[in-house]
């Protein structure tokens, strides 16, 4: 009897196991997950559709993110942030859940493959060094160069980890005219205005130099480090190595693709655009190479050029934190979905870089994400009203022009930029404050 009942118990027990297994496969309680994102349709097509397919009991509802709205997030479980300063603000306001312990638990899963570039950047937004957001993609920059031009003029092509000083020097070795009589430049840019000034500012940013302080709006230019950059850059400008005319077409300037420019900075999508340009205009595709963006000589293995513009975090007010986490995990690391997304010519580099699709028959694109991330990025546009930054630049460019023409010394120019630049910034700030007052 004892024997029998124990067998019975085993049987009952095993049927219970089956029962629970059976229940697990039954639909779970349906829930609706609200996600803020800039485009309702784009988010659903990129992530929501695949997620609902994988988790049929969770419905994704997108709350369109409008930065001008007083309450852009409404009651979203997942908050969208378009850059690191906004992520920092949300963390400081206590709106986001720390994800660090969840990440630790998932260290050995796909999430463990997340590029350190992305985790470094995301962690930099919190003073405690924890992760409060994830980003399925990031943006990087590389230096693209025209292999044929380098070969033609017998110049050794640039290598990974070059500094701006080397790049400017390299640019000066090209003649001002090509063999076809057309103008030839060592460096082309995608700036729309204040082109030469922006070349200098970018070289400074690479080394972590700031020229306008975000809180006090104090302008700084008259320093030893800035003077060094001005000196080597001005030499290159005077030699005509940099395409700097105001009539430049900015981001649409095709001169790199037509072989009139030897080097240019570009992002992930640039590589594709070279191919597309050749196809669209039925011209020969240029023979391009790619290296890391210019580095800070003090830290040659790190770059300040990485950004994240598609950050998602879990609202502390969410009633569905587990499901929200599932979605974040899915967005960043679901292999099938990332592959499907890549078909859409995604706008950034997948945060798990092994999903990066190689460009057929061409150089590997890894220099775009080869360097480690330096989150200390003094780009004033991220935090200061662009109108103020532009006001400063508009004052500084004519002063730089005088130096290039030889009408002014670099020393005098640096002092003048600080003085007149500060005045322009102060005037613009007053103007904006007045405009912000209620009428």
């Amino acid at each position: 009897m004892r024997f029998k009942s124990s067998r019975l118990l085993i049987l009952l027990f095993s049927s219970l196991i089956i029962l629970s297994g059976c229940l697990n496969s039954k639909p779970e309680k349906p829930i609706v997950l609200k996600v803020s994102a800039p485009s309702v349709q784009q988010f659903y097509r990129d992530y929501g559709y695949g997620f609902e397919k994988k988790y049929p009991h969770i419905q994704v509802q997108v709350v369109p993110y409008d930065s001008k709205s007083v309450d852009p997030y409404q009651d979203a479980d997942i908050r969208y942030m378009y850059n690191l300063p906004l992520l920092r603000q949300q963390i400081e306001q206590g709106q986001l859940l720390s994800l660090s312990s969840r990440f630790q638990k998932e260290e050995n899963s796909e999430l463990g493959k997340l590029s350190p570039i992305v985790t470094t950047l995301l962690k930099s937004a919190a003073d405690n060094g924890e992760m409060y957001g994830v980003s399925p993609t990031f943006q990087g920059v590389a230096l693209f160069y025209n292999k044929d031009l380098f070969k033609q003029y017998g110049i050794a092509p640039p290598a990974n980890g070059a500094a701006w000083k080397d790049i400017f020097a390299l640019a000066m070795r090209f003649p001002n005219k090509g063999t076809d009589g057309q103008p030839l430049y060592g460096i082309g840019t995608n700036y729309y205005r204040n082109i030469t000034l922006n070349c200098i500012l970018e070289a400074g940013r690479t080394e972590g130099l700031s020229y306008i302080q975000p809180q006090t709006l104090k302008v700084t230019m008259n320093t030893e480090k800035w003077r060094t950059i001005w000196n080597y850059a001005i030499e290159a400008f005077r030699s005509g190595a940099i395409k700097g005319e105001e009539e430049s077409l900015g981001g649409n300037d095709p001169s790199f693709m037509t072989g009139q420019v030897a080097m240019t900075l570009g992002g992930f999508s640039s590589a594709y655009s070279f191919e597309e340009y050749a196809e669209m205009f039925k011209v020969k595709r240029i023979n391009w190479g790619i290296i890391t963006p210019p580095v800070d000589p003090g830290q040659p293995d790190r770059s300040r050029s990485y950004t994240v513009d598609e950050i998602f975090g879990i609202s502390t007010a969410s009633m569905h934190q587990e499901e929200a986490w599932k979605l974040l995990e899915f967005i960043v690391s679901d292999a099938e979905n990332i592959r499907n997304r890549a078909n859409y010519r995604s706008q950034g580099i997948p945060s798990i870089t092994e999903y990066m699709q190689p460009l057929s028959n061409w150089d590997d694109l890894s220099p775009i994400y080869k360097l480690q991330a330096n989150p200390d990025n003094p780009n004033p546009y991220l935090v200061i009203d662009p109108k103020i930054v532009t006001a400063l630049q508009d004052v500084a460019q004519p002063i730089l022009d005088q130096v290039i023409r030889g009408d002014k010394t670099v020393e005098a120019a640096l002092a003048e930029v600080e003085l007149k630049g500060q005045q322009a910034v102060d005037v613009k700030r007053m103007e904006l404050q007045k405009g912000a007052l209620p009428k």
Partner: protein
Amino acid sequence: MFMCALILFSAFVTGCNSPKAVPLIDKDDITLNIGYLSEEAFEQRYANILQREYPKLRVNIIPMKELIRGEVTVQQWVKSHSVDLLYIPDHLFESFIDSGQIRQLDAYIDRDSYSLDDRVPEAIELTKLYGTGKIYGLPPTFTGRALAYNKDLFDQYNVSYPKDGMSWNELITLSQRFPQGLSITDRTPWDWVQDMGMTLNLQLYNKTSRTVTFNSPSWLKVWESAIEPLRNNKVWFDDINKNPFRTGERAMTIISSDQLRRLEEGQLGFKWDLVTMPVNPAQPDVTANLFADGFYAVTQTSSNPDDAWEVMRFLLSDRVAKWVYGDWYGFTTLADQLGINAEEKKHRAVFHRLRPVLPNYDVLPDSLRGLAIQTLDQLLAGSDPITESSLTDLQQKAEALLRSDKSSGKEK
């Protein structure tokens, strides 16, 4: 007790493994032909969602352009194209039903217990009107029109807000209370006059008998209502792109469903709301302003109607509704997806608040339309009140034109 456990045990096992037909997603070698305006149009709307949902399924889009343009008849088109699933624009839906080219879906709906409860009931009623009670096709979206009004202007002029189900005459009276009462952006003055008559179910033209009715006492009343507000600028016919309602100049405007989002996202700087289109006071709960962009239907000739029906159900699902998001094709017929917050839901509800009726008139031939426009223009240029004789004159000219068209063999 032991037996009891065994029975329970086996019940669980079978419960877990109830046999089911192979779902389409796992089937190999299935090809479906889908009739749609064009391949580009299908791609534009759905991108690659069918490939993602059914990776093994082969889909061919069969363009329906020539049929939609009226270059061939339904029978001719069906004869030369082999299709399983169709997206039929509303103006062709009746012909497909009448010619017996599409399957009645009621049996499929019953067999699969496919619920229509989550649909906008008025959209289901619309398809049943076409099918005289039966369902031959299901619309993924519906379109319509509504009256938007500027609450701030109504408050300022101390006029009580418009209501659902007003008559056209009530709306015209309301428009007289404002310097700039009503803006119409999708009609000409004559179309508007015609609209008002149609709302009252007035007969105008009959294609089969080739008869026209311009001069009935009821039509005279419609013309009378229209002339005064047109003459004293209470009703404005505005450029849809300028749309002075949005700048706060006009008190009211008639919008179609595709214009709603522009109002919602326009940050207009005044409070506004929506009510239904004017109705026929004799039938205050119906409107001829509820339409479908198109109906999905399974063809009679399909050799694989079950899979066509499954893909059709997917194309009508909430996941596809979210994928297609936006009002380009109208509002989704899934009630739950109709707007993403309380305000959007409230606005969209107005568009299906009235029950649909099918238009029971034939389109006026261009020549007669020209005559009507001429008469209206002449009346508007003068200042005399409209009389029976103006319409009798129009009627006579129209009849003469119909007679001469007939004798010269010209068919419209």
